[in-house]
């Protein structure tokens, strides 16, 4: 083989090799970009909830725990999630109702002496935890 022909073959091989590397690199970069787009799309689907749950913890605004009163009735005021089932129980009275609004306000009778009043909230959705609070109210008419 002539010297010129040999140089032409070597140069052709070098050009071909460089061209092949460019093509391979370009393809792999496209693939990574596509995968990144897919992952970000998946992430956006996972972290954007379509429905927001309005959860309200059981809070009792009135009366304060361990209160001494001189009347045989109190008003219990508080708030819970909408449509929860509320059970208020003491040794002398039971109240069961479904609250339509967040706030609730009920009159509750008291017995002479110590009154243990348990307030239990069963949420509308069964996957949400049941909540409860206990009030100790003292009806001591001689005291005040």
């Amino acid at each position, binding site marked *: 083989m002539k010297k010129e022909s040999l140089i032409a073959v070597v140069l052709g091989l070098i050009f071909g090799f460089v061209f092949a590397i460019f093509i391979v690199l370009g393809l792999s970069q496209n693939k990574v970009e596509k995968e990144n787009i897919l992952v970000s799309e998946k992430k956006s689907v996972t972290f954007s909830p379509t429905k927001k749950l309005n959860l309200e913890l059981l809070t009792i605004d009135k009366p304060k725990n361990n209160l*001494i009163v001189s009347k045989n009735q109190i008003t219990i005021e508080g708030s819970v999630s909408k449509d929860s089932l509320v059970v208020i*129980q003491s*040794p002398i009275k039971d109240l069961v109702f*479904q609250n339509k609004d967040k706030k609730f306000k009920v009159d509750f009778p008291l017995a002479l*002496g110590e009154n243990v009043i348990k307030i239990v909230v069963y949420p509308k959705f*069964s996957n949400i935890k049941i909540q409860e609070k206990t009030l100790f109210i*003292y009806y001591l008419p001689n005291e005040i």
Partner: protein
Amino acid sequence: MIFKKILPSIFFFIFLVFLINFIAFGQEKNSTSSSEKEVEILKEKIAIKVAELRQENNQAFSGNIINLSENLIEIKDKDDKKILINLDPTLTKYYRIKNNQKKEINFSDLEKNDYIVVSGIITDKGVNANLIFVDERYLVDFGRLIEINKEGYWLKINTLTNENIIIDIETNTKQWLLNIKNLELEKIGFSKIKEGDMINFVAKDSKNESDHFSAQKIIVIPQEYFLK
């Protein structure tokens, strides 16, 4: 003649003296009644203030008597905390509550393990008791029904704190079931209660010989309510 001329002047003078006396008396009476009113208002204000201060400082404590001596009681409350109650022989009054009525009793009527409600003022050395009521202690709780014993008429309930409590259903236990359609409470019998239902109950807070609590009343929330 002179007497006739002087007579109207004398009458006028006497009248004047009476008038002055009358005015002076009236003024004195007015000033007395207004000062009495002020005293009454002051008394009322003091009474209201004293009542307010008593209300602010008074606190209620309850627990079972663990020690009893002449001027001192020691109680253990629901959290097993010991509280010293200082008694004043002239001030402290004692009552027993039964059937929502109170009856005055003496210090000598108190016994160890009695459940008492004390109202008084808290100090560094304990509570200075004004009133002591011997009362009944109740357990008001709820949980999921995990076992029914139809022979022994008892229910095992798993509470929110993961404690298992057994309650006896007595002949006088009031049993209510929530109607899930209209949310009204309906009277039921023992056979209507199912494992998995939620039970809200009131029982006397002392165990019987079977180591069970005796239920006063129960409210059953059927498991179907939560499947809606």
